[in-house]
């Protein structure tokens, strides 16, 4: 498939995945392999002081040498918390500066707070981060985030973890038409067809976590999502037929019928 370029780096997979909500690291790794994902999001959390230091860690299961880590700011409701969290992430990952910024509005909806998001994006971009930013499907805000210098804009399809799919394809279409940086649908995908629809709109990639980790068979769903993203991308490149609300058009010749 045609490659995806984010901040000058080339990726062959257009499916980005989260690493949360899995049964264990083995399942996490198996699902991510089945998804063929190259970029994986991780959260930054306090060490549990006193816990067994020898228990396996995410970094053992997903060696940073094999995957591009995308530390996020999940759980942050202010620009300041998000900025602090990503500075810790950069230190943690030896200066790795590709990050996912998300500043949420409230814990019930997890809908983005776009004002705080804009504020944090400005600071982080100035501070040298390569910011992939989670936002609403507001096309004006999406453009402002690009203008600030974010390397990818990631509008939601629907609420995080809702599995409702793409609620407003029209807004996404405007965003896709207007932005030059990659547009990645993030949050809300529930099943394979949702991912295909996102790609058919012309999105550059899809990011998901719950749709895979929460499926009855996460590894099989990961494979489904890989194929769906590729199918949607290829369909977009192939140029679908126009919709015809009425007059049907036969697929077989209309002449040469017997007894006619």
């Amino acid at each position, binding site marked *: 498939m045609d490659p995806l370029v984010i901040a000058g780096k080339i990726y062959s997979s257009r499916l980005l995945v989260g690493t949360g909500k899995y049964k264990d690291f083995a399942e996490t790794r198996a699902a991510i392999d089945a998804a063929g994902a190259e970029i994986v999001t991780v959260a930054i959390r306090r060490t549990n002081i006193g816990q067994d230091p020898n228990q396996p860690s995410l970094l053992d299961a997903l060696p940073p040498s094999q995957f591009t880590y995308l530390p996020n700011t999940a759980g942050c409701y202010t620009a300041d918390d998000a900025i602090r969290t990503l500075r810790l992430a950069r230190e943690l990952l030896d200066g790795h500066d590709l990050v996912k910024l998300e500043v949420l509005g409230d814990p019930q909806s997890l809908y983005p707070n776009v004002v705080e998001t804009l504020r944090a994006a400005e600071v982080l971009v100035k501070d040298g981060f390569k910011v992939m930013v989670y936002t609403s499907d507001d096309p004006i805000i999406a453009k402002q985030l690009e203008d600030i210098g974010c390397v990818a804009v990631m509008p939601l399809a629907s609420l995080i973890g809702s599995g409702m799919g793409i609620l407003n394809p029209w807004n996404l279409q405007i965003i896709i038409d207007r932005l030059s940086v990659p547009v990645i649908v993030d949050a809300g995908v529930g099943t394979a067809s949702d991912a295909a629809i996102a790609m058919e709109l012309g999105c550059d990639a899809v990011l998901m976590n*719950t749709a895979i980790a929460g499926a009855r068979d996460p590894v099989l769903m990961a494979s489904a999502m890989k194929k769906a993203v590729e199918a949607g991308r290829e369909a977009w490149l192939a140029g679908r037929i126009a919709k015809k609300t009425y007059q049907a058009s036969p697929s077989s010749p209309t002449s040469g019928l017997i007894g006619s």
Partner: protein
Amino acid sequence: MITLHINGQPRQFPAALKIADLVSELDLLGKRIAVEKNGEIVPKSQHGNVMAVDGDQLEIVVAVGGG
């Protein structure tokens, strides 16, 4: 005796100590972590120099699964 606030919890230590020593104290030696002291990052390269003193607020974080 000094008190450090580590990840929001107060903890007693006999005396001020280097971040590096604190990390080993906490059994985090060799683990992939990052340390923030009073809101400022303490780079790994400085763990051997920077002291944690009474009343310091410390955040010590790791990467975990998340989406």
